[in-house]
């Protein structure tokens, strides 16, 4: 099944950015938009217990008080300094009238009492991670947030620990060491709780680590299973239950055989991004990151099981199926971006679908029961891949954009950071649109020989990024998931590194790298409200119902991450290769924002 696609376009006017409506004709059918199942998106209780809001990962709040009519009155209710001026990628969580925040390294955790004026601190927990961990974090010392279940808060530290706290008191319940910084391993992802397991994966794909995902017992932190992304089947937890959809993923020990001898031991495939879970199918979904080193000539083969997605049993970790978005990746197209779970009717049949806007620039629609690709459409400007072959599931690469040793290949789109990176989309079941915060960037790439020295980068590429066609570096696109089309799109000058939030008030929220926090009409894309925060926004906005019964919207402001490292690390953009090529495209960011670390919470003024 293929779908015609078109590039989103938008226009710029003198006084700001106006979205251009792309779907001139009304939608063909008036059927309800696709919705997540009840098990993956239970009725909204006004809390926000995990970064993605629910297992469907919709990042959709049903609250309606803040809407197209009222949003113009939206104002700051309170703020809070995290005390750390590095990239704030975490989602604030709200449980039992308490807000929880995890800071970037040193990964302090704060609980704020929402029942009192100004939300005073209830407790603080400081894990004191090893300082040397900062030297093996590829892309700023970020943390993507915590997860809360059954009165326990779970989070990860940069130096490789998973910690459980009593959410009421901040008391440490257990602490499990999982990663080894001497090998280049860090942990930056937000854990996921699935049944009685905490799911955690490592970062370090730029340092020759071997990717893994672990399932810990929520009660005591015991490691119940650890599944590697490379190596023999027994390490990957591939057994008799493994039934991948495509032939190229069938065979014994492909995690060894699809690599040159021993290369899988330093082959990456880390799991630093988004995982999710379908309770009805009892399947855990987790993407794997890029193969290492970036220099593809050092690792001929498909490099299983990197740049793809596993479905696993959360109890045992046993692999059920796998699909590889980008076999033998040669552009750093990690497969770890967000995974949304929707129930859709496709060609008249109900399908359990997962949506995934990949780094490689394609939005995938997979049957989440078996890993079959139902569609794959480019949502950003892509020239490195011509299309996805739906018979084999494989991307058809453009040979002109293949990377080579000692050759500078110019204008490869998207960049190593992808059509989009980790910063998650939101989905509104009222509009049927997926709101994708993404990039519009290209890069020059030269492969060089990479030497493996444990605990140092293992990349082997000189990269310089630049703006894509049109000159804007970021974009915010509303994508009609039923009709596989962009509906409207906002051009943003700076790269887009913030997540999206959709609400029942038919608004969508996101932030920009120069600090604007914006609310748009979810149907038209018209900007309804904006507020300038103290630093660039690369965090994940959330909405919740306060103890007073009113709706609040919260976001962390504080530039950084890979895209904002120039500011948070005070780097020198005269070297465009710096920060693995991001300095080439962020040379102006230091003139537009400064480091920060502040929580902003917004509400309508009391009547």
């Amino acid at each position, binding site marked *: 099944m293929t779908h015609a696609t078109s590039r989103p376009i938008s226009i710029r006017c003198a006084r700001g950015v106006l979205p251009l409506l792309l779907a001139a004709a009304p939608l063909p059918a008036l059927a309800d938009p696709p919705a997540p199942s009840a098990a993956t998106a239970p009725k909204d209780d006004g809390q926000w217990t995990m970064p993605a809001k629910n297992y469907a990962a919709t990042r959709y709040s049903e609250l309606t008080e803040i809407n197209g009519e009222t949003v113009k009155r939206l104002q700051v209710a309170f703020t809070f300094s995290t005390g750390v001026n590095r990239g704030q990628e975490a989602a604030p969580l709200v449980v039992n009238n308490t807000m929880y925040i995890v800071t970037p390294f040193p990964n302090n955790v704060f609980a704020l009492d929402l029942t009192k004026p100004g939300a005073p601190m209830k407790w603080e927990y400081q894990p004191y991670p*090893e*300082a*040397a*961990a*900062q*030297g*093996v*974090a*590829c892309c700023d010392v970020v943390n993507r947030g915590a997860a809360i279940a059954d009165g326990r808060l779970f989070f990860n530290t940069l130096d490789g620990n998973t910690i459980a706290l009593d959410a009421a008191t901040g008391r440490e319940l257990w602490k499990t060491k999982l990663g080894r*910084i*001497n090998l280049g391993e860090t942990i930056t992802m937000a854990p996921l709780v699935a049944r009685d397991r905490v799911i955690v994966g490592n970062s370090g794909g*730029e340092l020759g680590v071997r990717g893994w995902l672990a399932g810990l017992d929520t009660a005591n932190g015991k490691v119940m299973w650890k599944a590697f992304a490379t190596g023999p089947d027994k390490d990957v937890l591939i057994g008799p239950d493994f039934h991948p959809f495509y032939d190229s993923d069938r065979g014994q020990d492909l995690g060894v055989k699809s690599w040159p001898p021993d290369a899988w031991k330093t082959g990456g495939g880390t799991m630093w991004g988004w995982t999710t879970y379908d309770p009805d199918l009892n399947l855990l979904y987790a993407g794997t990151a890029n193969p290492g080193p970036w220099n593809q000539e050092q690792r001929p083969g498909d490099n299983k099981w990197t740049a793809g997605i596993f479905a696993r049993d959360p109890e045992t970790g046993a692999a059920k199926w796998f699909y590889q978005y980008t076999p033998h990746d040669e552009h750093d197209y990690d497969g770890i971006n967000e995974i949304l779970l929707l129930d859709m009717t496709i060609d008249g049949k109900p399908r359990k679908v997962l949506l995934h806007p990949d780094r490689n620039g394609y939005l995938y629609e997979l049957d989440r029961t078996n890993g079959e690709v139902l569609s794959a459409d480019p949502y950003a400007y892509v020239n490195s891949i011509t299309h996805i072959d739906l018979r084999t599931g494989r991307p058809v690469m453009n040979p002109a954009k293949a990377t080579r040793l*000692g050759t*500078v290949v110019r204008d490869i789109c998207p960049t190593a950071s992808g059509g989009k990176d980790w910063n998650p989309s939101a989905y509104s079941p009222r509009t049927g649109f997926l709101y994708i915060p993404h990039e519009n960037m290209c890069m020059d790439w*030269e492969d*060089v*020989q990479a*030497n*493996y*020295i*444990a*605990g*140092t*980068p*293992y*990349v*082997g590429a*000189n990269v*310089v990024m630049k703006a894509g066609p049109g000159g804007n570096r970021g974009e915010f696109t509303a994508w009609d998931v039923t009709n596989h089309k962009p509906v409207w799109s906002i051009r943003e000058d700076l790269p887009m590194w913030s997540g999206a939030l959709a609400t029942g008030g038919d608004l969508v929220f996101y932030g920009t790298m120069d600090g604007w926090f914006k609310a748009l009409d979810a149907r038209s894309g018209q900007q309804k409200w904006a507020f300038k925060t103290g630093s660039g926004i690369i965090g994940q906005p959330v909405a919740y119902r306060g103890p007073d019964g009113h709706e609040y919207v919260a976001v962390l402001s504080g530039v950084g991450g890979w895209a904002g*490292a120039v500011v948070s*690390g*005070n*780097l*020198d*953009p*005269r*070297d*465009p*290769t*710096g*920060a*693995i090529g991001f*300095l080439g495209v962020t040379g102006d960011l230091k003139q537009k924002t400064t480091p920060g670390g502040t929580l902003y919470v917004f509400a309508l003024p009391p009547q």
Partner: protein
Amino acid sequence: MAKHYEGNPHAIDDGKRLFSWYNCDGCHFHGGGGIGPPLMTGHWRYGGQLDQIFESIAQGRPNGMPSWQGKLPAAQIWELAAYVKSMSAPTATNGPGQPVPQTAAPPLAPAPPPTSVTPATQSTPPP
């Protein structure tokens, strides 16, 4: 010691090759920085005299600069220091306007790269 290496074009040239051979460029790139701080600004966290730069490389620094002492011969650390220092010199080969990526140097004959590095201890006090 420092006198012999400082501004010495041969030492700087060798240091430049060692800088990519030992993966310094993976963290500091061509001076603009990434994981590690930029080295081309002329501003230093731990001092910009050649012996201070030598110390940074040899001992490592607490916030993630690995220690290379015992992994590399002292002469190579001096060459690296000379190159690092040259990045911010007014006539820097990697200075403003010319930070073009270079193809990595061919492996230097003498020492294979170490297979691991040692994180600096947290006890090293910042200056």
